[in-house]
């Protein structure tokens, strides 16, 4: 939840030159720090403290149901989690859901962004209607999809999609399919919006010049649009990957993790909230946090994700 701290802040702060700061620059910087201080303090209080507490808990033997059996456990909790077949299966599920849904979202989002960008009439209406799914509460959207596919209440089994009476949430493959569909439906607009922001920064003159030189539409897309949109795409992918990796609501509503459809967040929830095993659950949470950090690091270092509009001076 609080794990997706904006990763770009650090990258931007590294840049300033080291030599010869003037008196004035130094004073300005001091003022800047003071202006930021309350916000930083707040952030430390509401994010650093819980993260630190979770780290500490993950090294303890602590189960609320057994108040007498507590103590320092070292890395035992981590050994238990990492040594469990269930953990790796669940990580596999999560990666699968993330990769598949983000790829579909990227392709659909790009198409929608192009449509929104080129829409001649009703621009506002098109953009608004595309955004509607993103405005719906995730749990509500998950219930809508659940009821649509449920054999008892759903309409899907009455359509051409499924001539038989299919129990969609009774099998792993079909349950994962519905979960991914719900995720894609819900967050493609977000992807499209981020990509649209990238599209609008491209100078129209480039396209005109390319057209004059005889470039086809496909060449204009691959040679101009894609390269110039690279930063926007990287940011969109980063945000969506981080989000998708923490998928919880849809799975919780549709299967509650049954038929091997658990994600890492569901697994953490089960240990923490259902079993009250704070030690083990915190270890799972910390591992999720580390994986999320790793994803952010990979994107920032590997793909050069940065804030849209930032000059690479």
């Amino acid at each position: 939840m609080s794990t997706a701290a904006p990763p770009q802040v650090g990258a931007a702060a590294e840049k300033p030159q080291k030599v010869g700061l003037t008196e004035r620059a130094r004073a300005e910087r001091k003022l800047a720090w003071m202006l930021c201080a309350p916000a930083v303090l707040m952030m430390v209080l509401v994010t650093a403290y819980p993260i630190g507490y979770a780290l500490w808990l993950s090294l303890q033997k602590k189960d609320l149901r057994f108040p007498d059996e507590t103590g320092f456990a070292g890395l035992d909790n981590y050994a238990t989690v990492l040594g469990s077949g269930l953990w790796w299966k669940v990580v596999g599920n999560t990666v699968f859901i993330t990769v598949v849904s983000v790829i579909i979202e990227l392709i659909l989002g790009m198409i929608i962004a192009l449509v929104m960008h080129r829409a001649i009439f009703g621009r506002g209406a098109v953009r608004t209607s595309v955004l509607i799914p993103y405005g719906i509460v995730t749990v509500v959207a998950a219930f809508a999809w659940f009821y649509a596919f449920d054999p008892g209440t759903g309409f899907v089994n009455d359509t051409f999609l499924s001539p038989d009476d299919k129990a969609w949430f009774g099998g792993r493959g079909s349950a994962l399919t519905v979960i991914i569909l719900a995720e894609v439906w819900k967050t493609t607009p977000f992807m499209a919006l981020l990509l649209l922001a990238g599209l609008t920064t491209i100078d129209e003159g480039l396209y005109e010049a390319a057209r004059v030189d005889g470039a086809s539409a496909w060449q204009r897309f691959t040679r101009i649009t894609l390269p110039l949109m690279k930063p926007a795409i990287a940011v969109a992918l980063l945000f969506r990957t981080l989000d998708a990796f923490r998928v919880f609501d849809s799975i919780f509503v549709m299967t509650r993790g049954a038929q091997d459809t658990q994600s890492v967040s569901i697994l953490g929830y089960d240990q923490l909230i259902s079993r009250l095993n704070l030690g083990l659950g915190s270890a799972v949470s910390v591992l999720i946090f580390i994986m999320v950090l790793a994803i952010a690091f990979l994107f920032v270092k590997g793909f050069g994700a940065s804030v849209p509009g930032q000059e690479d001076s």
Partner: protein
Amino acid sequence: MLSRVSLAAVLVALAVALSACGGSSGGGSKTLNFYIFNEPGGGPQKVAQECSKQSGGKYDIEFKFLPNQADAQREQLVRRLGAEDESVDLIGMDVIWTGEFANAGWLEPVPEDVVGPASSKVFQSVLNTAKFEDRLMVVPIWSNTQLLWYRKDKVPGGKPPATWDQMIDVAEKQNLKINIQANRYEGLVVLANAMILSAGGKIVNGPTEVALPEEPTKRALEVMRRLGTSKAAPTGIDTSNEDTARLGFETGDSIFMVNYPFVYTSAKENAPKIFKEMGAAVYPRVDADKEPKPPLGGINIGVSKFSKKKDLAFEAIRCMIKAENQVTIAKMGGLPPVREDLYDDPEVQKIYPGFADVLRESIDKAGPRPSESPAYTDLSLGIQRGVHPLTKLGAPDEAYDKLHDYVEQAVKREGLL
């Protein structure tokens, strides 16, 4: 210097803000907060209101509603109790939470002067769910059990068979379904436990030892496998719960269903034609020569250790569990009383027309889930993973090993679940 001043200002502001939201949420000193799910019949609310009135202003019971599903109720409660919330006075507890809550030190044991009225004429099976280490920790207020519901017009001879195997034979021959609860949730533990007990086995010997005797457990798993793979199994059997079972039965495609008595009133309203042909019998057996072990549900009332009004709370409980109040709850919501003698009451007989005695027999013979274990949640999760999905349950040997592994892991409280 300036920064230190601003830092201090921020801290002061924060302290003010925090103390403002940390205020007491207990209400007046006479208010008893009762955390319980919103029972649709409204019986508990009526009874609590009456008791508050009769107390002459000594206490006033206020309901704080929990979600409808037992898992979700428990999750909200344990979060409050884990944080030692003083605003919780009375707790409406599922019969399976006693061990966990008592072991965690969240419950005030029932005082001597309440033990008498709390256990007088109460079914022994029900009373067992209220005890932890031989001490009465909570007070039963209503019970529940599953019955075998059948279609009088479809069953040969008008009488239901006694065993699961015979039921499956009949249903397959008639091309009709059998509705059960087999989603991966507590309801599946209810089924698995009833099967294993009725085959002559049990799941654990006390909180730390796996029982699962090989022969009866394999027999139970064999029957469950047959149930899951039979053509009498409804399409969504692996995601079925009490509600989908009820809805399935009400469509008229089913001949049998195991479920709680709420289905009777539901059918009366939703499917009058089916309702006319609906019969009730004691829960099916695994083998004809062994007793059935019907599931046991219901609610016990506990008093939180962190409550500031424990004496008042127990006084309120003494009032709410009175015989006439149990009848009111039964009348309004169909929830079976915990006092055995009430089943002879003509008023109760009228609430369960023709099956009040079946209900009494069922609660009396009921086989509880192994909830004396403080780690019951682990056990429940383990059992669920061990037998779900029924449609893909392996041959008895393989299924037995899987279930045994999960239960052992749960009992040792090791690893992830």
